[in-house]
């Protein structure tokens, strides 16, 4: 059982299922679709599911709580998934203009982390703005209700907001400023779980090859699965890189986000744990050893 975040970032899972890639491996796979990596994480920790899909930001925030989980593999990255959307009438032309504004984020996720990074680039912190926490799908409601002037949703909520509030909003060009990755996680794994993870990764690997050689068909699979329009898929597809890996940059990214969260007091925790504890390379080493690049 895998808790899959309902986003095109989970394309490898949907494709793997659609082309029967999991059937070729050793597990029967069932999906539990959730909204956001945070909920997927929660389901993993509660034991409802074996695996979940979470962004590196969620991993960073949860590592601070020293929860007993591990990351098995990264399967997608996007450098434009979380977007800064502001009210057109608020005349926010640069990040500097965010100072003192009411901004909506999803707490403990890439959404919150990205805002703090954007602010940091201008020498600001979250203290300089008024933060409002929403569930990912409710961010836009806060905006409609005029509780907030800006929000940072991930896809597909960014696209839905753009469709819904066409003309009333401005989407800032932030591509490249925050690379987000989605990862396969589970509770701290015993041998059996590693074996299961290996099977899931094998299925994902087959799906990756299929996505690379059949992008058109893969898009169609995700569109059918998530009831998305071709317009939306085209909107996000070019930002996505589907590849399996488990490397140093993920660790660095998680670590720097964790340190950042502690330093900026986004979390109540004060200690940044050793990130290596949250990485389990055993499954990946069996399936794709050359995509693993972490200190052993």
């Amino acid at each position, binding site marked *: 059982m895998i808790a899959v975040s309902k986003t095109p970032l989970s394309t490898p899972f949907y494709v793997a299922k659609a082309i029967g890639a999991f059937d070729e491996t050793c597990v029967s796979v069932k999906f539990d679709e959730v909204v956001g990596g945070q909920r997927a994480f929660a389901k993993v920790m509660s034991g409802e599911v074996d695996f979940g899909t979470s962004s590196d930001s969620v991993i960073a925030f949860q590592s601070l709580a020293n929860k007993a989980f591990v990351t098995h593999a990264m399967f997608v*990255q996007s*450098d434009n998934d979380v977007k800064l959307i502001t009210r057109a009438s608020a005349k926010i032309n640069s990040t500097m203009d965010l100072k003192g504004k009411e901004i909506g984020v999803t707490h403990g996720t890439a959404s919150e982390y990205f805002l703090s*990074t954007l602010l*940091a*680039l*201008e*020498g*600001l*912190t979250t203290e300089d703005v008024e933060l409002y926490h929403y569930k990912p799908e409710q961010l836009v409601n806060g905006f409609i209700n005029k509780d907030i002037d800006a929000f940072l949703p991930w896809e597909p909520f960014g696209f839905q907001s753009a469709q819904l509030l066409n003309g009333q909003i401005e989407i800032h060009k932030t*591509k*490249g*400023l925050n*690379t987000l990755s989605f990862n396969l996680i589970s509770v701290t794994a015993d041998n059996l779980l590693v074996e299961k993870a290996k099977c899931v990764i094998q299925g994902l690997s087959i799906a*990756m*090859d299929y996505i*690379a*050689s059949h992008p058109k068909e893969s898009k169609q699979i995700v569109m059918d699965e998530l009831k998305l329009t071709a317009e939306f898929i085209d909107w996000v597809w070019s*930002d996505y*890189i*589907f*590849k399996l*890996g488990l*490397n*140093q*940059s993920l660790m*660095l*990214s998680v*670590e*720097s986000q964790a*340190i*950042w969260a502690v*330093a*900026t007091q986004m979390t109540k925790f004060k200690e940044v744990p050793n990130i290596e504890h949250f990485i389990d390379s055993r499954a990946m080493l069996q399936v794709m050893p*050359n*995509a693993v*690049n972490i200190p052993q």
Partner: protein
Amino acid sequence: MNISLLQRIFFFTLGCCFLFILLLGSVIWSSQAIELAFSRNNYAQQLTNQTNTLKQLVANDNIYGNNYSINDWQTLEVKLTALLKSSPKLTEQQQTIQNSLQNQNESLKSLFILINKNKLKNASEIIKKHLKAKLMTQLEAIRSDALHLSAIAQKDIYNTIKKQALLIISVSAVSILALLFGSFTLTSIVRKSLNEVKNAFEKNHCGDYQNIQLSHHSQEFDSIADAFNTMNKKLSESTISLTEMKKIVDERTHVLEQLSKTDPLTKVANRRALFERANMEFSRAMRSKNKLTLLLLDCDFFKNVNDEFGHLFGDELLIHICNICGQEIRDIDFLARYGGEEFIIVLPNCDIAGGIETANRIQNSLARHCVAIEGKKVCVTLSIGISMLSERHQNLDQLINDADRAMYLAKENGRNRIEVLPALNLH
């Protein structure tokens, strides 16, 4: 389809050329594939090195310093971007990583520009540290991708070499087999055809005029076979006439021989044949000490018969006498016309008594069988002289001479009788 030998050789040569080109092509293609695999690995390693250099630069330099010059950064970054644009042709899997590399590089540039824009003058050390860590993370992401690409490329080199080696070995094996088959077939056709022609010549030499039956048809050997078969046909025709000619000549010779030994009137052996046979029997009797008896028969009053009834009747009478004699003698006995109305009968292994008995039988039979002419019965008699081989006979003439004397004795003693020349000391 009848293909000429020349055409076969031409096709074989053409096939050899084609296989050679195929082999050459596969070698060239393989070397290009291997070269490409190496160039991918080389590219990935260059990327790794370039990123490492950038990482060192960012780690060591104080990018927030007022005097910080971005020239070094820009030079390296431009190099990295140029390198990323100069990628060799990649596999689908490698292309995914290449796309990731390009995206990461764009992110890196955006981030660096933003950080460098205002040097984060208002920012705290924590922010500065965090953003630098972010920059390093971004660089690490590029380095990880480059390492991943390198690992794939290295594996690809191994697979490519293995695949290409297999391809070249397969193509070589197929080529060698095809060439062997082609040359074997060609040699076998020529050898078989030559053997068939040679065998045909040998058979021809032995007089067995058989056509060449080629087991493999080729225009050249077919034309040889046609020419040979035509020649053979003519030869066999002319050779058949020679055989027949020989047969005819043999038959004619046999007839002539018969004629030369036969009396034309009575059809019994003539004088020449008599001496030939009698000499042979004389010699045999002398050698084996066997008995040999001669009867010399002479028709009584033959001249009168001729005068009275004409020569034609006389001839008929002689034939009649011969017929009677022929009926009364044994198979081994030999009857011949000695002259005019005289006959000699050679009796091998026969003594005087036997000769007398034979002579008596002839006389009796002749007496019983007369010849009719113009309503009259004409009966003739024979005076018969008998001689038997004895020690005093040195040659056949002496033996005949004795028989002759005995016959004259019979004439003198009244005709139609038998006289024996007293033969003493008979062995």
